[in-house]
């Protein structure tokens, strides 16, 4: 490689390294803003702000879903299966994939009593895909 090309290569590598470093620092600094939602541990520890409109999510604890008499009201416990959980109350239409043991993402306000009052619920599905007849035969990844 001749000298001119070598020099161009060095310049390009430096530009790329500079861009990558800038972006890495920016993302590191903005990490909390890039995160879409608060996990159960952050809600339980008080890191999630109270009284503000936020998103919080985790897994719906099996057996915790209780529907009220109107049919639209529901409350359930969101957990990370590591000892952190919080209660969610919601009135409205749940997404098709909502279910016990499934991922969930709630948008709403965390009250001082630790109850999350959601005005929007979306389902967070996992990365496992399998036909119904294989369920229980194939090990899930987590």
């Amino acid at each position, binding site marked *: 490689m001749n000298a001119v*090309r070598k020099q*161009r*290569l060095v310049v*390009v590598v430096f*530009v*790329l390294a500079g*861009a*990558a470093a800038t*972006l890495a620092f920016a*993302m590191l600094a903005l*990490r909390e803003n*890039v*995160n*879409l*939602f*608060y*996990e159960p541990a952050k809600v339980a520890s008080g890191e999630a702000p109270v009284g503000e409109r936020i998103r919080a*999510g985790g897994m719906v604890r099996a057996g915790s879903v209780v529907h009220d008499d109107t049919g639209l009201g529901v409350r359930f416990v969101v957990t990370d299966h590591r000892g952190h959980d919080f209660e969610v109350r919601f009135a409205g239409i*749940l*997404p*098709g*994939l*909502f*279910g016990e043991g*499934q991922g969930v*993402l709630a948008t709403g306000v965390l009250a001082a009593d630790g109850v999350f009052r959601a005005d*929007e*619920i*979306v*389902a*967070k*599905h*996992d*990365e*496992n*895909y*399998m*036909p*119904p*007849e*294989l*369920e229980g035969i*194939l090990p*899930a*990844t987590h």
Partner: protein
Amino acid sequence: MATSPRRTRGWLRETFHKAGSPRWFFAGSRAWMFGLYVFGGALVLVGSVWGLAFVPPDRLQGDSFRIMFVHVPAVHVAQSVYLAIAVAGLVFLVWRMKMADMFIAAAAPVGLALTAAALATGIIWGMPTWGTGWVWDARTVSTLVLLLLFFGLVALRQAIARSERAALAVSLLAVVGVVNLPIIKYSVEWFTTLHQPPSIRLGQRPAIASVFLWPLGLNALGYYCLAGAAVIAALRTRIVEREAGADWVRQWLAGAARAKAP
């Protein structure tokens, strides 16, 4: 007989020089283009019919997961196209090889279309499963950035009148934009997102049942072939445009005209 490193280097160098010759590429690429169109088309046809009509539904999502057979190959090939464009950008910046620049011009619209398809299918998929078509999480935003990068590669070239200047600017954008690729890949691991983590990781057992993996693999390979064919076709057009004054292009045009005449 084992080839010596020197001989391998010589072969590499020769291929590199040949690839830089528009005439050599134009002469040899026609058969490749048709072959990739036919082979890729057949793969996508088989993979899509298989995936959409014959594999069983997913245990949770039912039939709506079948859009995966379009979504995953589209987004995967789109990122590969970007990586190829970034390498071509590096080659242009260092060696000023005009074929590298023409490759970027030919491939950017293909990447743009694939990324648009990936985002559109993602939105359509999200509506029945997540319960929302769009959230501003790290995965969706970084993929949107990929779309804007492809758009920028197309627009920047048209915004600069002098083609040499445009080629330099486009190549630089192509190289710098490559930092977005690891962000797309790791967005679902570094940050909390609504988008699920990857189902297929290197060195790990896939989280997708093998009955689904076959049509997915066929479609992915087919998308690669079709994208390759589309890029070759666009590149051939660029070559004829750019080399319109060259003798070999005139001869080829005259030959093509004779073949068309009754």
